[in-house]
């Protein structure tokens, strides 16, 4: 019976994790040589022991100080839901929530986030208990390839919370207004930090509107 046994073939996650271990071993073996081969500047790799609070769990790790929060999540903690797109803050694929606020995890160092509460797509929900925003993206078909989706969803959750707190946007006709209706133009402007190369924008918009209507959004 196919369904009775756990799958035995290689999984994407398994391959990635093996890759991380091999990569780490190479780094240890090669660190001295790599330092010497670095022509531009002397300077040894600096590591630091840090503790991160990710999805409600305290995780201890040793990172090179240059490790971005994005790389710490993916390469050290195996949380590969958070995606690396441009790695320079332009695409939004790496969006996570830090203390409830959406940020680009590629433009911040992991060592700067001790004491912060970090929520990734894995912490928002999982199969069987999806976050309302995840469910809405499925329902509305808010993706094609799916690469930008975790970032879109984390960003949308953070965006609705910002709106709840009364944040105006560039699409707000009068920034001093008390109540700002979440129009299509408002949602599009507020989500402009998340690119989708498949151009699933109309369905992303529909998914976000579904969740906004029932007042959801909190992580």
């Amino acid at each position: 019976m196919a369904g009775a046994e756990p799958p035995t073939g290689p999984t994407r996650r398994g391959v990635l994790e093996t890759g991380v271990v091999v990569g780490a071993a190479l780094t240890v073996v090669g660190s001295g040589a790599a330092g010497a081969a670095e022509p531009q500047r002397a300077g040894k790799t600096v590591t630091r022991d840090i503790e991160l609070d990710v999805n409600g769990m305290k995780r201890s790790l040793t990172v090179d100080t240059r490790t971005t929060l994005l790389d710490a999540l993916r390469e050290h903690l195996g949380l590969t839901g958070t995606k690396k797109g441009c790695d320079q803050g332009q695409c939004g694929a790496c969006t996570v929530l830090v203390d409830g606020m959406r940020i680009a995890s590629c433009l911040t160092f992991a060592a700067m986030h001790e004491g912060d509460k970090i929520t990734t797509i894995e912490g928002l929900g999982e199969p069987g208990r999806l976050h309302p925003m995840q469910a809405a993206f499925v329902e509305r078909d808010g993706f094609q390839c799916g690469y930008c989706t975790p970032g879109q969803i984390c960003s949308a959750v953070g965006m609705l919370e910002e709106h709840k707190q009364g944040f105006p946007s560039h699409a707000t006709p009068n920034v001093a207004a008390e109540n700002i209706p979440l129009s299509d133009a408002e949602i599009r402007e507020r989500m402009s930090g998340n690119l989708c190369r498949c151009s699933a924008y109309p369905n992303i918009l529909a998914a976000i509107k579904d969740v906004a209507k029932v007042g959801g959004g909190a992580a």
Partner: protein
Amino acid sequence: MRPFTYERADDVKGAIRAVAGRPDAKFIAGGTNLIDLMKVRVEMPAHLVDVNHLPLAKIEDAGGGLRIGALVRNSALAADRRVRERYPVLSEALLAGASGQLRNKATTGGNLLQRTRCFYFYNSGMPCNKREPGSGCSALQGMNRIHAVLGASEACIAVHPSDMAVALTALGAQVEIATPAGAARTVPMTEFHTLPGTHPEVETVLKPGELITAVTLPPPPPGGQAYRKIRDRASYAFALISVAVAGDQVALGSVAHKPWRAAKAEAALKSGGSPAAAAHAELAAAHGYGGNDYKIPLIRRMVVRTMAQAKEATRA
């Protein structure tokens, strides 16, 4: 990226002590521009002092205006009720910049210190006097559609990319600075950033080890306010040009090495000139480099349009 040591500072004195006397050390706050530049090896600090936990994140009423802590995030500043009601031009400028994710990280102090988006400054394979003094300016004869038309030099035609700083300049803000000697000094926004001259690598009057602690706003000037920005996309792009108007005070963005207070335009307005005449007066000294020639007529029209918008805002 070059390896670096890292420490988290708990107080202003400690942070300054950790950076002063170490030319290879830098403060890091939001990091949205510094980390970007570290990745391409334009910035190569050997030591980072994390100032995010200093007690500088409050917006306080002060002297009829506001005192904005250097660590107030761009999103928090744009959403502050007092800013939205009394300094809407600042709120509008902040919201016209970057994305939601970046505004949640970027700070008031860091925004002032962000560096130019000149393509050649980012490309370490090309000469750039700002990145490597004495190597030459690739933009003079290169792709220069985003470059300066006012106050540039033969050494550098880069522009300061901030939106926020343009509004602060129009509003007559001041920058509060803590010094390594334990003193505090205040510099008007108009004097905080420098023109390139023969030293484009110098961008502000900050001395080594000095830390921005706050930005203060005087009471808003009488009259309406407005911020308008022209960019290549409808959202999330740096300005090609921008205009901030607060009453009779006007500043221009992405036209020079610094946020540009349009003093000549203001003088023309004061002596009864029309907005078009005011813009004309300001642009008498403007100079294009080919790719950016379009900016000069565009600024003229944008000044007129933004002043009209500010006037409409007064009536509303």
